């Protein structure tokens, strides 16, 4: 794109920005009572979790989260369909290896903690999963071609674990005549935790596998 066109786009973008700011100010000025937030807090005891964000993610709007995990799966399957990964990096030297040996368990432990804590305070499956994924990234950088992931079939299992747990719970309650993902109140807390655990593993494994960037060894031959 040449100079004048760039300038034109910049001017247009600036105009759009101005308009959006004005619209935003108007919208915020006339803001209604945030009824949704109140409702979310009011219903919190029924969900069995103390962290309202977790309640939204895994209970009120659990269906969004289910689809979102499916997005994650789609990305991974897409990456796998494009062929084998690039070769691994050179194996780390001893100093880096020693550090990795410390950092990775720490990341995993922290991830687990975040998952557990997410029920009450900020934290949860995504934060935990992200740390697990980071552990995989560190391993791959240190020269592990698989980023610490297991073999193909286990990797596949891990990849579908999140959606699978959601569907298992969701369809089971559906079979008992309730709404999809309408957890019985007494079990709600534990079901949410189980789904979150599965989702954490799935997110972690998927992120690490996406970083590896190709189909796992053992497939396609």
């Amino acid at each position, binding site marked *: *794109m040449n100079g004048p*066109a*760039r300038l034109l*786009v*910049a001017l247009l*973008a*600036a105009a*759009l*920005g101005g308009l*959006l*700011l004005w619209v*935003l*100010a108007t919208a*915020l*000025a006339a803001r209604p009572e*945030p009824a*949704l*937030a109140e409702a*979310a*807090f009011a219903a919190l005891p029924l969900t069995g979790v103390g962290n*309202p*964000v977790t*309640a*939204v*993610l895994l209970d*009120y*709007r659990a269906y*969004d*989260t289910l689809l*979102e*995990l499916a*997005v*994650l799966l*789609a*990305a*991974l399957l*897409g*990456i796998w369909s*494009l*062929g084998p990964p*690039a070769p691994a990096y050179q194996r780390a030297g001893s100093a880096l290896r020693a550090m990795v040996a410390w950092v990775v368990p720490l990341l995993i432990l922290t991830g687990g903690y975040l998952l557990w804590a997410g029920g009450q305070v900020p934290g*949860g499956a*995504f934060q935990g999963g992200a740390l697990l994924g980071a552990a995989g990234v560190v391993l791959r950088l240190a020269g592990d071609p698989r980023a610490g992931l297991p073999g193909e079939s286990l990797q596949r299992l891990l990849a579908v674990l999140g959606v699978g747990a959601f569907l298992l719970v969701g369809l089971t309650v559906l079979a008992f005549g309730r709404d999809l993902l309408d957890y019985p109140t007494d079990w709600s807390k534990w079901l949410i935790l189980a789904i979150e655990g599965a989702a954490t593993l799935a*997110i972690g494994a*998927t*992120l690490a596998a*996406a*970083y590896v*960037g*190709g189909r796992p060894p053992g497939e396609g031959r």
Partner: protein
Amino acid sequence: MSTQLLYGGAGVALCVLGLWAFLVHRPLLRKLIAINIMGSGVFHLLIALAERDGAPPDPVPHALVLTGIVVAVSATALALVFGRRLDEQGGVPEDER
């Protein structure tokens, strides 16, 4: 309210910046970065909306942002692998540029 506008306004600014970058830059990797900036802007705006004058923040936008982030990460990962495969095959064909 003004804090909210400030944060939200910053989000809008990021968003427009990302849009501008997407439109003027040709390399696909740059476009991808531009999209991510745009996404950050939208997430920023959503987070700003959660603020409720001292009351505990509205959890719904927070959850939306978390969902959005995961989606954005997935898409970025896929796009990056696409880009790398394309590079391995010699890049964008001449007639497609």
